[in-house]
């Protein structure tokens, strides 16, 4: 079966003024559909950059990136945006909820952007599963970190993305809340075969994944 994600000699160079930062120096990564992969590595080794490229937030500099059969090198900005809209769900360390909206509207705006209309059944199922059904009328400031992250996960998966990309989802949470969030990610993976790529610093968090990918200096150094 064709892998969901396949990169070959993927490179990313940031130009800051005259300085070139080689964030990725040739990454070869293959992820199968339904896998739960953890990406670990020291700070600054290019983990977030890899995630951003796979989610189409930023274009690669060179190399090949195939995600669900789409070649990112050949796609325009708008095409990557459309791809992201339909195929990718992001979860960030800082939750990144819209502060002026309630939890409900934060989730629904993802459905709105996707444009497939409101699916009440899916909405009820997701909020139920993440244990936030009774907190939907609250705004982010009135939610704990763990609750905010669960709302963010709900928002990420409400449109049934092919891939869930999580950048240190437990980085701001205490161990109890981390455990809840990790359990939910694992449930998502086990129950719905949700493909997940999760960056983490925490070895315990990495342990819930099927596979651990280690990075250093813009390269993968073992899995």
């Amino acid at each position: 079966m064709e892998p969901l994600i396949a990169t070959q000699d993927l490179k990313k160079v940031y130009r800051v003024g005259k300085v070139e930062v080689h964030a990725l120096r040739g990454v070869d990564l293959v992820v199968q559909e339904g896998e739960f992969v953890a990406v670990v590595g020291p700070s600054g080794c290019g983990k977030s950059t890899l995630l951003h490229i796979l989610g189409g937030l930023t274009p690669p500099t060179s190399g090949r990136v195939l995600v669900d059969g789409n070649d990112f090198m050949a796609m325009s900005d708008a095409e990557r945006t459309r791809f992201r809209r339909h195929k990718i769900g992001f979860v960030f360390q800082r939750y990144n909820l819209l502060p002026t909206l309630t939890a409900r509207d934060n989730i629904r705006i993802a459905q709105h952007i996707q444009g497939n209309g409101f699916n009440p059944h899916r909405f009820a199922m997701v909020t139920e599963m993440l244990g936030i059904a009774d907190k939907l009328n609250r705004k982010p400031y009135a939610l704990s970190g763990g609750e905010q992250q669960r709302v963010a996960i709900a928002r990420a998966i409400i449109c049934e993305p092919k891939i869930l990309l999580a950048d240190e989802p437990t980085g701001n949470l205490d161990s109890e809340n981390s455990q809840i969030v990790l359990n939910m990610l694992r449930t998502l993976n086990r129950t719905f075969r949700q493909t997940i790529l999760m960056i983490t610093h925490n070895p315990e968090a990495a342990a819930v994944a099927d596979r651990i990918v280690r990075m250093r200096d813009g390269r993968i150094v073992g899995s």
Partner: protein
Amino acid sequence: MIVENVLHRPIRTLVSILAVAIEVGMVMLVVGMTHGLLNEYAKRVEGVGADVMIQPPNASFFFGLSSAPMPVKIADRLAELPHVLAVTPVLFQSYSTGGVPIIVYGIDMPSWNRVTGGFVYLQGGPFRGPNDILVDDIYARDNHIRLGQTLNVYQDFQVVGIVEHGKGSRLFIPLATAQDMAGAHDKASIFYVKCVDPAYTDSVIASVRQLLPNYTVLSIKQFMTLVTSNDLPALTAFITALIAVAVCIGFLVIFLSMYTTITERTREIGILKSLGASKAYIIQVILREAALLCLVGIVAGIVGTIVAARVIQSSFPTISVDLTPLWGLRAAALALAGALLGAFYPAFRAARLDPVDALAYE
């Protein structure tokens, strides 16, 4: 989300709404007051009771203010034309009371009476001497003028009569006095012509045009339609300038408001992008927010203008403000266009933000 964003920054929202309201109000009031002034003036001109008015070549057709008045002698030649019943010369003297412009009529009483059918004297009677003045009842009431008192209009006059309003002006002085004051001996600003029957108006106009080829000759009816039309021909430059200023204010405030908004919400725009929002989606969000601010501002502006018009009219009865729905719509359309234009650049910038940078923005 748009409503929430707007409510999230109440002061910014309020200032934007206020700016649009002022913009709309300014356009409506300026146009309304101009209309009011003209309509009111036109009604008084109509009230003179003449059929034709004749002004010097190139006269600014409303108000008829001209630096080159016509020789009074022309009146005699006009009076000899067929179907003409009477002709009266008037010399305008512009004056203002408490900031309200007024045109004092210098009139020749005998011919004036023939054209207009004479004043209705509520108190007192006609001129007895060169320094007498007649005042209409509205002016007398607003300025607390009593019969017999002295009234200074560039020089001292004695109020000898209070007349019913509606005939040309609110203040009348003898023609010879007006000519002396203006240094325009034997000159007139306008001739009012009364036909033996209104049906002869067109033929009288034709013969006047023959007699005085370059002069501005209008039937009172034509004058009325010109002055009271929605598109003020004579004042366009003035009004256009004021409208342009008002629209600029609205444009700039919305521009600034939306510009600061996108800077403040850079991260939120990044979040929308991470969710897959297209450029068009983000532009739409910003434009809709601007449109919402603008629509509330328009409603506030229209309501405010109606209230302001009431207040103005009750505190200055000599000023009338004629608000027309057409100009309300025009003001609203201008405000909306200005707001969308002002929001467009910020919206465009927001749409072009790099999602990774925007997400990293503090």
